[in-house]
């Protein structure tokens, strides 16, 4: 196992409402999420001595958050990073905490993903004037700038190579939506999706229809980490960090500018999987609950395959057979996540995993806060029955990935 295995834990999680209509700044959103996460941990704001965040030049930073909350930090860092940054910052926190460099770290992401600058450059006021750039995935001169467009090119080839069907893409949307119907925080709480709804929805960029795409939102989410010995004394059962990968790269740059010509959908998880499971000292069979970054229905499929949960090309049928639903083989994306809870740039999935491992998923069960669940799905229970070990997979692009193994026990 890795030198950092079990040395640190996520002890606090918090977020804001998922907003579609705006009205709040990233400062206001961030302050609420951070306050909620620190309170959830059972810590005082002044116990926090370190804070990190990721952003795309679209959010207030750690120092501004700390100043408004009366914190004086000994360590702060705001990185430029997209999806897969959460797990990378957890790895970074594990190192700093374990080394004694800091004592209690907040990680947050605050964004106006709906009413501010949206992925692809669109702003709320309408289409953007743009600089014509050739390459690096920012190909304005051919009208390819958004994630739906860029990842759609990879998805189309993936469907061609393996015979993946639109019904299999739909199965991802329906599975995650089912879980969102059990999550009071989710945009689609109590609102299921049918195959007919999916098929009748408008095209965004073929192969993606509307419900293949995540829900852009104004939202902030925060996590709190401390060293293991302190974690036991706090409010909830800790979620120990066993291992992970931090923005691991594939060897194929965007659309294979490089020497190797691996498939364009070949995800960086193929390069990270031995590292994460080796470091964590677990096998895939030990994992009870998982989440795969679902910016689109396509992205969980190639991550599941890349991390070796199924063979290449098989994830679509895996979803179609219902094997990712609650009470099935491996419940995935139990909050509804990006497709049906709301898009947070990845961090919400780590918050949800922490709640699942605690046995305290916030659902319709009257005593969920005490860890008492009915497991009656028809009555709105979202808690997984087995929740010893959880796996989170972050997605940057097909060429960048992060992952995280969390456990109720510090030894796996």
């Amino acid at each position, binding site marked *: 196992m890795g030198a950092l295995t079990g040395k640190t834990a996520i002890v606090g999680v918090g977020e804001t409402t998922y907003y579609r209509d705006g009205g709040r700044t990233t400062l206001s959103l961030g302050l609420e999420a951070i306050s909620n996460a620190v309170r959830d941990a059972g810590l005082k704001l002044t116990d926090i001595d370190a804070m990190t965040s990721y952003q795309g030049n679209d959010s207030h930073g750690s120092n501004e958050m700390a100043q408004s909350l009366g914190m004086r930090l000994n360590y702060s860092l705001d990185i430029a990073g997209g999806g897969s940054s959460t797990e990378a910052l957890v790895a970074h926190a594990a190192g700093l905490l374990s080394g004694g460099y800091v004592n209690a770290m907040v990680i947050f992401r605050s964004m106006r993903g709906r009413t501010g600058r949206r992925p692809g450059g669109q702003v709320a006021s309408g289409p953007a004037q*743009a600089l*014509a*750039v050739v390459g690096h995935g920012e190909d304005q001169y051919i009208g390819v*700038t958004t994630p739906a467009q860029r990842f759609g090119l990879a998805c189309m*080839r993936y469907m061609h190579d393996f015979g993946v069907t639109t019904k299999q893409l739909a199965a991802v949307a329906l599975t995650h939506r089912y879980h969102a119907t059990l999550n009071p925080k989710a945009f689609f709480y109590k609102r299921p999706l049918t195959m007919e709804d999916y098929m009748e929805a408008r095209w965004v960029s073929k192969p993606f229809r509307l419900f293949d795409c995540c829900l852009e939102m104004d939202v902030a989410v925060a996590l709190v980490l401390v060293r293991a010995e302190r974690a036991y004394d706090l409010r909830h059962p800790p979620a120990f960090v066993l291992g992970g990968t931090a923005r691991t790269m594939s060897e194929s740059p965007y659309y294979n*500018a*490089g*020497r190797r*010509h691996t498939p364009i959908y070949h995800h960086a998880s193929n390069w990270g999987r031995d590292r994460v499971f080796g470091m964590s000292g677990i096998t895939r069979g030990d994992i009870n609950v998982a989440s795969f970054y679902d910016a689109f229905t396509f992205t969980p499929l190639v991550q599941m395959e890349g991390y070796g949960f199924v063979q290449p090309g098989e994830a679509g049928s895996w979803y179609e057979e219902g094997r990712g639903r609650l009470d099935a083989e491996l419940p995935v994306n139990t909050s509804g996540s990006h497709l049906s809870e709301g898009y947070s740039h990845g961090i919400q999935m780590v918050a949800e995993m922490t709640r699942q491992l605690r046995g305290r998923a916030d659902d319709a069960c009257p005593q969920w806060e005490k860890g008492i669940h009915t497991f009656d799905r028809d009555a709105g229970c979202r808690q997984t029955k087995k929740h010893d070990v959880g796996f989170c997979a972050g997605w940057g692009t097909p060429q960048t990935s992060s992952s995280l193994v969390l456990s109720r026990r510090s030894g796996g």
Partner: protein
Amino acid sequence: MPPKIDWSKLSFQPDYDAQEWWDATKESKLLVRSCTKCANKWWPPNVIGCANCGNFQDTGWVESKGSGVVHSFIVVHQPILAAFMEAVPYIPAIIELDDVENSDGNKVRLQGVLDEDDTKVGINARVEMYFEQASEDGKQVPRWRLSAQQPDNVWKFPGP
């Protein structure tokens, strides 16, 4: 009919690394990055370093005739950029060039917008390039259309 792209809504002011590529389009030349120290070639133009040997200081160019095969494509229905508001639905594609290979013998891939509608376009379709003027100073953008002769194995998006 080719989709109407309003080039006046894009700003053609390339950075230093892409300047030579755009200048060549004024002479209707489609250039691909080529390493002067090894046999490697690659896309896109603004990636200046050779992934095969690490050379990044004097990479050169080769000219492509501009024909190839569709490797993948999408059909954009929801436009984002102002230049493409009247172009939807349009079809960006990844194209494998016939005449440029990298150091492993793989066809170099680039991207372009295809003229036809998606009832005709598919993976493996043969395509060829033509230039369209895009800026007042004569910069041109490569556009792509289906070749007259098509193979039997063109893969169309599966319904529904």
